């Protein structure tokens, strides 16, 4: 038996559920904040469904004025007293973080290429020469994609920069993903952010632009 933890919120927020596996969500008070948790016989497994539910509980804590501090999936505690003992010293920092994040959401932008980042080296290359040629081709593809990544980042910063508070650039490139960036955006600027997003598709063509959000601010609480 134990507690799975979802997020940190201001203590007056009423827990919203259901949590993973339909378990009710309860608040563990740490005035002036609280940690939303659900109780389980065993530590929840990281399935897609559990990940969606974890995110859904955190999203339920978002509103116009307050933004929760998301906890990474997998925070597991024996019981409430153990949770309190583990986080008591972090409460002042969390209070500051909640104040900093109030009124913000996270938005995502992913730019993908028209071809894979790099062709896999054929495992059955018939000769060392063929193998080396394949490695060289892959090296050129990665170098091209890296250069393109820098160009894309410059376009994103020029286009979206005025509308965002912070950016988080994911490591890469990876697969056909040239660049993936998370932005912290104030709700009051979301309309301008969306307008700026609309121009990106034309600016970055033939690369494709995929947008997601709003999210709780997962990328800005580490």
């Amino acid at each position, binding site marked *: 038996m134990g507690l799975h933890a979802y997020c940190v919120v201001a203590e007056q927020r009423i827990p919203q559920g259901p949590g*993973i596996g339909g378990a009710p969500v309860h608040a563990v008070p740490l005035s002036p904040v609280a940690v939303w948790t659900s109780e389980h016989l065993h530590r*929840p*497994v990281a*399935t897609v469904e559990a990940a969606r539910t974890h995110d859904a509980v955190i999203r339920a804590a*978002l509103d116009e004025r307050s933004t929760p501090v998301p906890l*990474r999936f997998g925070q597991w505690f024996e019981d409430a007293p153990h949770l309190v003992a583990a986080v008591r010293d972090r409460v002042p920092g969390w209070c500051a973080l909640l104040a900093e994040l109030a009124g913000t959401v996270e938005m995502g932008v992913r730019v993908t290429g028209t071809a894979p980042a790099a062709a896999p080296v054929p495992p059955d290359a018939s000769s060392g020469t063929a193998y080396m040629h394949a490695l060289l081709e892959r090296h050129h593809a990665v170098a091209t994609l890296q250069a393109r990544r820098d160009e894309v980042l410059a376009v994103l910063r020029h286009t979206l920069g005025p509308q965002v508070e912070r950016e988080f650039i994911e490591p890469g490139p990876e697969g056909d993903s040239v660049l993936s960036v998370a932005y912290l955006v104030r709700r009051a600027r979301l309309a301008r952010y969306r307008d700026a997003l609309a121009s990106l598709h034309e600016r970055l063509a033939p690369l494709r632009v995929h947008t997601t959000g709003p999210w709780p601010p997962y990328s800005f609480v580490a």
Partner: protein
Amino acid sequence: MTKLPEPVAGGPDEYALADLVTRVIDRGVIIQGDVTISVAGIDLVYVGLSVLLSSVETLREHRPGPDR
């Protein structure tokens, strides 16, 4: 009280899933020093995203039981 703003147009399902799993599994505050993610009954201290997605697909194929 107004909740989340209208979502922006998303990308293909695989990107949306990758974005979700990346955020939930690989971001957010860590309270405990080691985050143990149990995937397919195997405890892993850290799971790279590509490995995790592969494992998630394996879980889907084998229709895991309800979340505990």
